[in-house]
């Protein structure tokens, strides 16, 4: 302990030496560092890299509530959860957003959240609700992990795109699918869980053996699968990618339209609707939050219609609140699957690590 103190003292000394120099250079970015006091008017949201919200919507909340929102993005979804758990005794913020159903149990078992039932919870569609007896987390958005296909490839080869898990192991689709490492990628894990939901605890390894025999390619992350390997994406076209099937999201086709210039009249990619696994993302009030009141206000805000309407175009997810608006492009190019695979978070918790391990030795080794 005394060494720690000594180190701290040294650091302060060092700070005195270097800080005057530094402040000259970085003055534009230190505006909100004095916010840790109690009764603070700043509320801090910890999230993953995909967090996004329209400026005007956030500004409205700040105006109405009187809180200033500070956002800390801390890596991809898995990283953000892990980092939040590491720092749970002295959290970096008040609210955490972005733990999904595949990792929910890790967060809950580690005591990441405290109970709070935000206003508007009753308007959340029932199928997305979780932890209803303790209210430690609130569903915020949902999305489907599905196989996407490159329309041009299938029309050129006069081939019907696959529509189900069963289709993917058929010889007609040999060497066409690229997916992500289930151990390191969230869509990769979702796809594995989808097959486990479809074929059962004992049946999925057989399915994957067939998939492997049918030439499935596994890469580490979504970025590489989608931008470098999948022939239907903008990046893949430039890279000369040659896999017309990829594990991605149901909202990827709308993104291909919205981020294209000029906008095409129809999406270049489609969704194999029988291959979907439903992901739900939750937010919660962090245990030991310094500004719990502000955190509660922020959680309330995330269930308002304003936020839920704004969310799809920013994060490419679907709202969970009843009667929230889904953008036209979503309805047109990436409708939600009617009957996606789902799995109880508790079951995922019990099996995730073991399945990923078996999957790794089955598919990668």
């Amino acid at each position, binding site marked *: 302990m005394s060494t720690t103190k000594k180190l701290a003292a040294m650091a302060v000394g060092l700070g005195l030496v270097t800080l005057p120099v530094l402040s000259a250079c970085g003055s534009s970015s230190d505006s909100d560092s004095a916010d840790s006091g109690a009764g603070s008017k700043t509320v801090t949201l910890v999230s993953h890299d995909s967090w996004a919200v329209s400026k005007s919507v956030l500004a409205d909340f700040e105006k109405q509530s009187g809180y200033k929102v500070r956002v800390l993005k801390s890596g991809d979804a898995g990283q953000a959860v892990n980092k939040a758990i590491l720092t749970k005794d*002295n959290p970096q913020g008040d609210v955490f957003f972005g733990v999904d159903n595949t990792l929910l149990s890790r967060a809950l078992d580690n005591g990441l959240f405290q109970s709070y039932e935000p206003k508007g919870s009753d308007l959340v569609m029932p199928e997305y609700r979780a932890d209803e007896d303790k209210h430690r987390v609130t569903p915020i958005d949902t999305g489907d992990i599905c196989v996407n296909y490159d329309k041009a490839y299938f029309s050129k080869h006069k081939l019907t795109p696959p529509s189900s898990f069963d289709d993917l192991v058929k010889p007609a689709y040999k060497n066409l699918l690229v997916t992500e490492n289930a151990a390191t990628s969230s869509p990769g894990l979702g796809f594995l869980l989808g097959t486990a939901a479809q074929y059962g605890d004992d049946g999925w390894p057989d399915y994957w053996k067939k998939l492997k025999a049918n030439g499935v390619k596994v890469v580490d992350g979504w970025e590489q699968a989608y931008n470098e390997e999948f022939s239907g994406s903008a990046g893949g076209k430039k890279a000369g990618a040659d896999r017309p099937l990829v594990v991605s999201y149901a909202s990827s086709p709308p993104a*291909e339209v919205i981020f294209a210039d000029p906008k095409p009249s129809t999406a270049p990619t489609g969704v194999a609707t029988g291959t979907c696994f439903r992901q739900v993302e939750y937010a919660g009030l962090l245990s030991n939050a310094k500004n719990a009141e502000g955190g509660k206000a922020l959680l309330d805000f995330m269930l308002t219609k304003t936020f839920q309407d704004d969310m799809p175009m920013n994060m490419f997810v679907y709202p969970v609140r009843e009667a929230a608006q889904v953008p036209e492009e979503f309805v047109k190019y990436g409708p939600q699957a009617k009957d996606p695979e789902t799995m109880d978070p508790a079951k995922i918790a019990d099996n995730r690590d073991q399945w990923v391990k078996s999957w790794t030795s089955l598919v990668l080794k």
Partner: protein
Amino acid sequence: MDLARTEVTPRKGAGKRKDAGKRKNGGERKGAAKSVAARLGLLAVPVAFFAVFFAYPVAAIVARGLKADGVWQLGRITDVLGDAGIRHVLWFTTWQALASTALTLLIALPGAYVFARLDFPGKHVLRAVVTVPFVLPTVVVGTAFLALVGRGGLLDELWGLRLDTTVWAILLAHVFFNYAVVVRTVGGLWSQLDPRQEEAARMLGASRIAAWRKVTLPALGPAVAAAALMVFLFTFTSFGVVQILGGPTFSTLEVEIYRQTSEIFDLSTAAVLTLIQFAAVGAVLAVHAWTVRRRETALRLVDASTTARRPRGAGQWALLAGVLVSVALLLVLPPAVLVQRSFDAPDFGYYRALTSDDSGIFLVAPIEAIGNSLEYAVVATVIAVVIGGLAAAALTRRDAGRLVRGFDALLMLPLGVSAVTVGFGFLIALDEPPLDLRSSWILVPLAQALVGVPFVVRTMLPVLRAVDERLREAAAVLGASPWRVWREVDLPMVRRALLIAAGFAFAVSLGEFGATVFIARPDHPTLPVAVARLLGRAGELNYGQAMALSTILMVVCAVALLVLERLRGDRTGEF
């Protein structure tokens, strides 16, 4: 790279300084004690910096993984080592590093010769060009490299050859990154070896090969060894390249540490792996320090500008052509593909899109990342130069003792420790006042400076050591304070080295990704972070903007390095 280059440059004054040291021993004890105290005082700041921002966070995260209920779980070490998968990772890490090092030497040594001994137009520009890859973030390089060896890449188009799922992609990317290490380390010394020695040997009847083997090779040996060890260190700890090009089948220790920490959240396995990597990197650095000491023999060095000549004869022309082709294929082509893709929209569409802030990813227009990157890099450079400069000043005296020499090697350790370890360490270690820096902007330049300091020390130290001790003594005898001695004697002689050190720290900070991505704030993304975030989204515009930002980053790095070449270009003497 300069860290190694300058270090293996022997100095003309070596013999003289030895005498100076002897005289000192017979001189006034009190003065010596005072100077030792002053030097230890200088060392206090870098020691404190590394203790607080490196050793403490890393120790904290390792302890979190290996301590349960206050008891060290050392049994975990044997558990982890007993795992076949982990042993495979260890084996792959080692052999790919050895293979990468061998391949880099094979391809880059002819380059070192060409840059050292041949004179051709555009040499300075080309030297900057081959250095750019070294400071590029791996996320950019990985994408660029797929374009070369992947599907639709050059090899694919010419011969239908694809390497992106093989270990060759990793090895070639390692050559891409480390080419400059060899060219600058070995070439730097080669250019200053007196060619007349080899000529004399041939005059005395030695064959060309024998003369090279008996005269030039022994003189170059230590430089080659030092370069090889640095390449081995960089490739042994390779992360981004292996993660992007290796896919899920190939994994180095560093990648495995990242997965265990960040994805699987098995902190005890991660802690054991961190310790293993620590031991390996420590061993490499110890060997490196040993080779550096061993080569501290006086060599006859001459001004580099007098040794390079226009190529003569078919052999030299062929060599020059071969090197230029390999540079074009391996080092220029992959980034060129990124540049080409960034312009693949009418009217510079991707560049124009960078100025719009309605995407919601960053809360700011992506173009602002350039300003952020420059701001952070300036601050990081100031920190690195202050810390590294103080360390170098304190370590100047070579009779300072084993302990101080050990610290010299310790300063290199951050290069060999996983950014995820440091990043997670920051999270749990720097969380209490007065050190609650977790969400402070200063953490970004601090993490970048950690990587920049070794470069500053390596650049400054040889130059500072080359200052004749008698000049300092004379100034002291005439009544100058230690500070005044430094200002009037040392500073004027090392000003250029200081600028070059600052330039390198700046370029390395610009490209730093691993640690920055953990701590950069969403409203203040740096260029590499912005590129990674854009690549993480679907859609043509996002991909195109990522390419455009990568291009901008490469241009900024290239400009910084070209300015350095200018500084180096008109040098006289040994540096």
